């Protein structure tokens, strides 16, 4: 239980999220457009910024954070992420290894 946030506070939260997302999008787009960094470094920046932006969207637009949640909802989200990690990394790993052996 806590005090209900008012319109102004919640509006500010949306606007902060929007500006953060805008910056996190503009930087990797700018890097790709200008080719300022080496390809491998650019890929690193794209990955890190995308992950941060996902967290920003969850936090400011979907209002998901690690506190004050109904636990079963958070468990649902975390379990889905775990399943995805196992399936996606497994799939990419196996196919990359297979591709290497075929050369």
């Amino acid at each position: 239980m806590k005090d209900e946030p008012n319109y102004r506070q919640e509006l500010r939260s949306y606007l902060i999220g929007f500006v953060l997302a805008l910056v996190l999008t503009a930087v990797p787009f700018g890097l790709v457009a200008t080719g300022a960094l080496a390809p491998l470094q650019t890929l690193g920046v794209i990955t890190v910024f995308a992950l941060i932006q996902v967290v920003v969207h969850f936090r400011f637009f979907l209002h998901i954070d690690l506190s004050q949640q109904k636990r079963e909802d958070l468990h649902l989200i975390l379990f889905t992420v775990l399943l995805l990690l196992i399936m996606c990394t497994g799939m990419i790993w196996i196919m990359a290894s297979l591709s290497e052996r075929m050369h």
Partner: protein
Amino acid sequence: MTQFERKHPGLNLGSHHGAAHDQAEALVFGFWVFLMSDLIIFGLMFATYITMQGPMAEAGGPGPAQLYDLRSAWIQTLLLLTSSLTFGLASLAMRHKHGVAPVVVPLVVTLGLGLTFLGFELHDFQGMLAQGAGPGRSGFLSAFFGLVPLHGLHVTAGCIWLMVMLAQIAVFGLSDMVKLRLLRLGLFWHFLDIIWIGIFSIVYLAGLTG
């Protein structure tokens, strides 16, 4: 100060909405189950796309550098991100304000942004098809047309849902039922924007690097 209890993750209507706030718990949880199963589908389409990279998967056909347009991807990203903000404004107006107009105006803007996004995306697909780069050309293009239009279909469904909700607001006003449906449409819309982060990062930006 009223005491505030969050019934579910995401934006809560708040206790001043009475019965609608109480009903939201089960409905929103059910919708999260749907969203997370949808996330699994998208995740596997992403994994398929990632495995379909390189000259072998391109089968002598055109690759990302010939097909993707960075400027168009950037415009689509801005459209979708702004539509997330405008939907947020509608959700906040529904939660805090009185009257229909503060909810309807940002929803109409959201719909316009969503439809413009679809226009840019379809224009891109048409350009690819005109070059003979359809889904049957190579494994890489099959994976592309499995992933990106799947997101486009979701946005289309979201736009249709949005139009239905605008009609329901016109007929029923902001009744409990309408508010609960808008709450779930908001989750869906923000969720699609999160999927788009993956698409512009993995498909467009990584594809055009180097």
